[in-house]
């Protein structure tokens, strides 16, 4: 699926998309949280870009680890340790690979989910980033099973995340700040889930345009 420079390209593209959606993410967080999610993600991903720009990476694991550390150190808030942990867990699945296959990608999503669950003490259905990530993973996994090609699988992941994101509107938040507004969180999308959908969407778009 991708060599290291393509992975870098895809992550850079994801960072740009996050930057372009900073305002939107912040507004989502404003409705049910404290209105900083876009700011946090944009700050964090600008450091990912910096890391990708300035670093040289031996392996995909190295690349994900350093990106994850940038997220941990610069996003802050709840999403920092969660996205950071997701990247670090992803890194652990990649070992000394210098190329990523579509199966690697699906595996890495699974590991990310486990990392987030552990760090966040959270699970599906609590109106968090997991509610975009889990359906994304499941859709991707299914597409692989069905023998779809890379671009199709990436597309399935993207659509899974977007569907999941849409579904978060119906959920009552049970984790994170949004849980404090209780029932009032219904009718709003979860900002962390929106970030997941943007990132996975950007990755899919990057490879389908390539």
């Amino acid at each position, binding site marked *: 699926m991708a060599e290291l420079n393509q992975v870098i390209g895809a992550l850079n593209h994801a960072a740009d998309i996050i930057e372009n959606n900073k305002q939107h993410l912040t507004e989502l967080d404003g409705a049910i949280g404290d209105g*900083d999610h876009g700011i946090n993600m944009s700050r964090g991903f600008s450091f990912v870009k910096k890391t990708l720009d300035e670093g040289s990476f031996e392996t995909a694991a190295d690349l994900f680890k350093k990106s994850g550390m940038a997220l941990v150190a610069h996003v802050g808030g709840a999403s920092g340790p*969660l996205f950071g942990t997701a990247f670090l867990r992803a890194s652990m699945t990649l070992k000394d690979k210098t190329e990523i296959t579509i199966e690697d990608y699906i595996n890495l999503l699974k590991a990310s989910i486990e990392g987030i669950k552990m760090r966040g003490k959270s699970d599906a259905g609590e109106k968090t980033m997991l509610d975009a990530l889990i359906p994304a993973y499941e859709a991707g996994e299914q597409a692989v099973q069905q023998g779809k090609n890379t671009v199709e699988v990436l597309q399935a992941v993207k659509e899974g995340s977007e569907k999941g994101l849409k579904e978060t509107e119906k959920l009552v938040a049970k984790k994170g700040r949004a849980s404090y*507004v209780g029932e009032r969180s219904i009718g709003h999308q979860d900002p962390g889930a929106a970030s997941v959908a943007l990132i996975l969407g950007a990755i899919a778009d990057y490879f389908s345009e390539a």
Partner: protein
Amino acid sequence: MKKLINQPENSLNEMLLGMTKAYPEYLTRLENTNVLIRQNLDGQKVAVVSGGGSGHEPTHAGYIGKGMLDAAVAGDIFTSPTPDQIYEAIKAVDRGKGVLLVVKNYSGDVMNFDMAKELAEMEGIEIEQVIVNDDVAVEDSTFTAGRRGIAGTVLVHKIAGAAVERGWDLQKVKAVAEKSIKRIHSMGMALSPCTVPSAGKPNFTLAEDEVEIGTGIHGEPGTHREKIKTADELTEELFNKIQADEPIKSGEEVALMVNGMGATPLMELYIVNNKVHDLLKSLGTTIHRTFVGEYMTSLEMAGMSLTVLKLDDELKSLLDDPADTPAFKIIN
């Protein structure tokens, strides 16, 4: 948005510079970090470290000094600081006797402090953590993130810091901090929202005759909204919520905090204090100490929170111990 700031992205740094310049006898900045640590860390004592998002001043760095905190880690406005920063703070103030982290119960704070704790433990630093969750506005349930930590946290700093000054070991300091947490209950409300500079506009809006009940300290909406009432009625409403959660009984002794959220005139806080005292007195409660002022704010939000700490002899005497920090002093 009208604020006394320069570039929003420089506010945190400039604030920390402003604090170190104001209080050189109390604190100093750890180079290349957003960590302020106590000047002249004395003795072979346990260290107390707290921190969280900024915008709550004087929380946290205002409580650095004798009898309270050894270090405060400042995140961006309303955003938890990151594990690397917390880890630097821990390393800087550990004197071999271990470190107590006082964390407010927000997913972000808890996870970032958790990660820092893991880093410190890998370095062999003895470390414990207490999670403050005094806000009775939020349901405490295993199905939620649990209750938030709000203004009552300042009293936990005071209790833990006093225990440290007495030379207690880490486990004992942790135990008394946890005991105090169980006995602290708070509830807040807002008359107006606040604006995070980098967001540029408030997080929610209220009509001229509306108040928000059950707000936290990050400019987030509360549990519900209602028509404005008199100070006495609003005070009684918040107080009843605390009282329903943890009944205050006749003969008990408490410490009381009436905390302003940032824009509320002190005059109004005293009017509120007048009412809470009457309510507590009518329950047959003795008020051992009262704190009225801005202890944990939400930028320029107007509103207040009430905090009641049920005392026992140990907590009472720890609360009365001397403290000398920029924003909290107890003189004996």
